[in-house]
């Protein structure tokens, strides 16, 4: 069923009785060619592109809860391609380009909104570092612009420019950055995959893997054994647990990241803004809530809830940057489990087990990667070769010293 404005009007006239379920609720088949574990953004995008771009069939996505209930439905929805290093930037730029045509591609309005992202500059050293980043972006085909203090002031006059602890000296801006309605991404991919014959199986938790002679045969689930020729794992915060079922230990730790939303306010902040001096980033949703976040909580956890110190830290950052915010209210806080890798960059790779593929280590930045991650993972699953923009995302990079460490923090996942 195709969606359009006309369709909405036509349905309104018959009391919206004609809408069909957005996806089927299939019972699992005995065997598939491809099983994707994890019905988050990446898993669903992988299935979608496998079916659509790589013309594969007999595909299932297994989701332990409901589709889109993991990080894809919890994140702060920022998309951007302002990366520094060669291993990353072409991939994220590929992703941004896919975002730019996504809604027309899957016929679902995910509200891809390129209202621009700025990272504030507080010191000369930061300006130098951001200039370098801007150059790296431009050289990889992305857009970047350095803004002066006055240009930032013209955009956001209410920021604390003058009596701040860390005065604002300018910003780097990526105009094509912005936000996307997160749930709609999951639902759009799910609908697109379903309509191309992919079985989306909810409430189906993978609890074990059947591996014989170094080859994957299928997965044990809460709904019984399901056979598969190839299994792709895209479970984000649960990566270590699921790959543990295949006997693998990953260069990944699980950490909580919280996000926050304020009560709805009339338009205040048009784009996305990050404040490095206090680790605070913010945008305003189409409904008026300020959506914001900061650092990860810093301790290993699988509980999808955070703790107080980071909430205060983030509120302090917000107040330092926007002193008038004192009387706006925090409405809701929540947490998601981050698959923090040892260098802060992801992995899309084969494993030592034939037919078992892994996609993870997205840290707190995998939402923006969703289209490219799905595409590249589908490429790997279908062709057994990495996509051109994802050649660096290999397991053996730690062995070879080819880490992609944007922050230069070393093997300290909680600092990436």
């Amino acid at each position, binding site marked *: 069923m195709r969606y359009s404005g006309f369709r909405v009007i036509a349905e309104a006239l018959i009391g919206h009785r004609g*809408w069909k379920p957005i996806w089927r609720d299939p019972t699992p088949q005995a065997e598939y060619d491809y099983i994707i574990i994890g019905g988050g953004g990446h898993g669903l995008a992988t299935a979608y592109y496998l079916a659509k771009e790589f013309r594969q069939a007999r595909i299932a996505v297994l989701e332990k809860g409901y589709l889109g209930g993991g990080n894809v439905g919890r994140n702060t929805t920022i998309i951007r391609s302002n990366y520094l290093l060669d291993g990353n930037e072409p991939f994220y730029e590929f992703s941004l380009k896919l975002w730019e045509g996504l809604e027309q591609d899957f016929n679902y309005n995910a509200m891809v909104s390129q209202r621009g992202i700025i990272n504030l500059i507080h010191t000369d050293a930061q300006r130098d570092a*951001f200039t370098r980043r801007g150059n790296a972006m431009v050289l990889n085909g992305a857009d970047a612009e350095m803004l002066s203090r006055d240009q930032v002031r013209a955009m956001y006059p209410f920021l604390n420019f003058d009596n701040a602890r860390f005065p604002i000296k300018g910003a780097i801006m990526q105009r094509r950055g912005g936000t996307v309605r997160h749930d709609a991404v999951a639902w759009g991919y799910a609908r697109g995959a379903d309509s191309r014959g992919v079985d989306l199986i909810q409430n189906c938790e993978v609890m074990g893997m059947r591996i014989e002679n170094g080859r994957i045969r299928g997965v044990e689930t809460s709904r019984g054994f399901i056979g598969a020729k190839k299994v792709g794992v895209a479970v984000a915060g649960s990566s270590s647990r699921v790959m543990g079922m295949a006997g693998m230990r990953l260069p990944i730790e699980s950490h909580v990241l919280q996000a926050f939303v304020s009560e709805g306010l009339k338009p205040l902040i048009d784009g996305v803004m990050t404040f490095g*001096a206090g680790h605070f980033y913010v945008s305003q949703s189409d409904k008026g809530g300020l959506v914001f976040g900061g650092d990860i909580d810093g301790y290993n956890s699988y509980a999808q809830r955070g703790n107080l110190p980071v909430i205060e830290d983030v509120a302090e950052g917000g107040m330092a940057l926007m002193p008038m915010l004192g009387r706006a209210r925090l409405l809701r806080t929540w947490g998601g489990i981050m698959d923090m890798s040892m260098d802060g960059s992801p992995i899309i790779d084969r494993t030592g087990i034939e037919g078992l593929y892994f996609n993870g280590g997205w840290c707190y930045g995998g939402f923006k990667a969703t289209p490219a991650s799905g595409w590249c993972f589908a490429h790997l699953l279908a062709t057994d070769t990495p996509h051109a923009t994802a050649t660096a995302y290999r397991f053996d990079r730690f062995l070879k010293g080819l880490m992609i460490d944007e922050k230069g923090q070393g093997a300290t996942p909680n600092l990436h």
Partner: protein
Amino acid sequence: MSTRLSRGGRLIDRSATCRFTFNGRSMTGHPGDTLASALLANDQLLVGRSFKYHRARGLVASGAEEPNGLVNMGSGGRFEPNQRVTTTELFEGLEAASQNHWPSLEFDVGVVNNAVARFLPAGFYYKTFMFPRPFWKHVFEPVIRQSAGLGKAPKDRDADRYEHAYAFCDLLVAGGGVAGLQAALIAGRAGARVILLEQAAHWGGRAPVDGDVIDGKPAGQWVDEALQALAKMENVTTRARCMVAGVYDHGYVLAEEKIADHTPGDGRPKKRLWRIRAGRILAATGALERPLSFAGNDVPGVMLAGAMRDYVVNHAISPGDRTVVVTNNDDAYRTAIALKEAGLEIACVIDARAIVSGALPAKARAMGIRVEAGRAVVKVKGGKRVTGVAMGLQAGEGAVLEEIACDAVAMSGGWSPVVHLWSHCGGKLIWDEAQAHFRPDATRPPTNQDGAPMVHAAGAANGALRGDAALADGARVGLEAAQALGLTPTAASPTAEVPEEAAMEAVWIMPQGAGPQLRMKMWLDFQNDVKVSDVQLAAREGYESVEHTKRYTTLGMATDQGKLSNINGLAVLAKSLNAGIPQVGTTTFRPPYTPVTFGALAGESRGEIFQPLRRTPMHGWHEAQGAYMEPVGLWRRPYCYPRGNESHEAAVRREVLNTRNGVGLLDASTLGKIIVKGPDAGRFLDMLYTNVMSSLPVGKCRYGLMCNEQGFLSDDGVVARIDEDTWLCHTTSGGADRIHAWMEDWLQCEWWDWQVYTANVTEQYAQVAVVGPKARLVLEKLGGMDVSKETLPFMQWADGTLGGFPVRIYRISFSGELSYEIAVPASHGAAFWEACVAAGAEFGAMPYGTEALHVLRAEKGFIMIGDETDGTVIPQDLNLGWAISKKKADYLGKRGQERTYLASPDRWKLAGFETLDGSVIPDGAYILAPGFNANAQRNTQGRVTSTYFSPTLGRGICMGLIRGGLDRIGEEVEFNTTSGGTVKARVVDPVFYDKDGEKQNV
């Protein structure tokens, strides 16, 4: 019309009045009023507009659950959006204005959305606005964003202050109703340290309003006595106006206390944020009444029955002259009785239950109130105000039996326990069929670090709704909690006299068989405009999980977070899916219980004290000299010292030249200083640094590098051997804390059996660098030590007295000049600095700042952590192989550096660059390589790491990394510029000045 009754009102003080304004109209109320009750007293029923359809909105509730009564309050630095009128205490001079309408509350053009509501069902925007693509960005989204939000964003800096407080207790009781009071009494008497918090300004919760009798006394009196008893116990603290916002792991509780909220500008903090560690938490947070879903249940004048009772009893408000009560339970009859007793007319009680038998209905009937059983409200009539209701059969489809004129409707769909605090850390719920609500499942509580239950629920919050049951439950759970704390409490058994109630009957849609036309007018979420038809549409479209429905329809996402709408919504969903309510389940309860302001959360950490400011002992001197300061981590350091109208650039040039040719003074106090001591200290430092430190003779200094385990360079600095088992490690200014933590990490986690002690003494010493050819003259002038080349050669240190100050002098140099870094105890720092300035005067000594420091070191080709390094650079890349011991079996980073890619000859390595025309290469530039990449951009082969104008050489100098490094010397390369052009430069030796290092050695 709503008005103030001439008698009654247990909370208001009629002897005084408060003047306030609403939308510019002046009104009056009494102390003890909430803004909500005061508005009602002034017949201001219309308080706002809904979010999506801009429908007229009146008050529905009397507490934290209110979804409609949100106003912009105050002005300037005290302007506050979305202020909930039901929890705002009235004060003299309060200014309020309604939100989300244009041009006015009464006439809002946004209401066109209402007229076309059927074209805008749940989630319509996911299906539209896609074509043509540019329209989303340029047309649709700007329009949508313009209409976003409710309250205006504050514009001015918050004029108030906020404070943070911490507390510890054995038992934290949340909720000062009878259950909470009773539990606190029991635990308090048993000796537990108890903190009892109540969000409202008054105590007792529902019991005093409902007219309960406890131990033979009116509930209000029992509450007062309980409070007096608690006040006498030293181990018990009680606080009103203090909302428990969240429960976190390990018994951590967040609470927000209103202090000057209702007395703005009186000098006290507006709010106090409490962080409390509690042994156990007892949630006695009461219950919230549910609306009923009938058509027009959102028309102003339709109110929750319990709320209407609050207004009548507490504030002597008449909600209307003639009220219809609609219910599925006995409790709502209390409202009918209270209104009748206040002299108001009850047009009818419409009871959905076929049989109405309880004591309360009997009493109502006896008072002459008309009761209709098995009936439903088919539809409420009226637009901005109720004018009547159409009554039909609850079992029917909506045929109207009778129209009843009225100007107010009280509704009750039953009560749901406030389970938020129970649920924040994972407490599970159980569906109570009889009361049609979720309540805490005592067998699956949230647990603390020991696996023991962390939260106990009591009273209405535990499903014990009636006054007597709540009281008994409070006593039982209070006893249980005190016992769990290891105390031996005494049981209490107060008795309450409360009328018997007959069973309620779940009613999720009224009337049961209502068709689409009616369901489109049944509101679930009043603020976000989510109706029964929207939830049914979501179910039809396959958004079957309760989370999907919530997200698709926005049910429960408004400022009340679904306090009124959640249960009704998921019951409708369950019915649409033909599933049981417990199978559908609830969405997650997340903190905060009610919204908390940013101001309260941030406390004092804002503006200039957002983060601590570290100052060296000489900071005041720098500021007095007009130094231009820049943030360096938490420090603030002089960037340069401009004289008169001198530009920063000119000042830096002057400072560099003066240092090269005469003598300069640098405040180097921020330099990290870590003492490493103990029998295993040498061995430890040999692991930490890439070179050998254990062999350093006492009295000498050595430059060292530190890498992380991956092999990447993380810090550098000069190490001095102080005595046989003591070393002093200098780190970078920004690195001191990080490196100290790094040392402790290894000592505590890996080499815990090594006898090494570390102390970060950065702030114990002030350090002055006296730099330049005339440096020695300055020290000799200060006098007291032999600082000749022979006695104190390069890379040695000595203790002594200089100019009367106790000093330690290190002969080290970060500029390539003759240089002494002199440490004095911090308390002498300012005086010693001034002594240096005075002694240097005749030699032309001038202070220099961080920028000159950078230029001086770059001229010498010295690397700077953070410029030449970014966490991806190894020492070998920087031609620092000489500082890496080949003999040592191991050091941190050694194995990392042996990995293939780190050992590859293809790595970008340090070299110097000079433009052909002497100009300065731009910061952040890349070195272009032949050919184009996949994005049709030039390939790269290196990048700038440091680039400056060198006053000494009169031209631009640059350090950078390039594939091949020093092997490329002599080649010509191109750098990109941000404007799209290129700059040509030649690869040169990165040591631009005094290549043989003669000047530092004199």
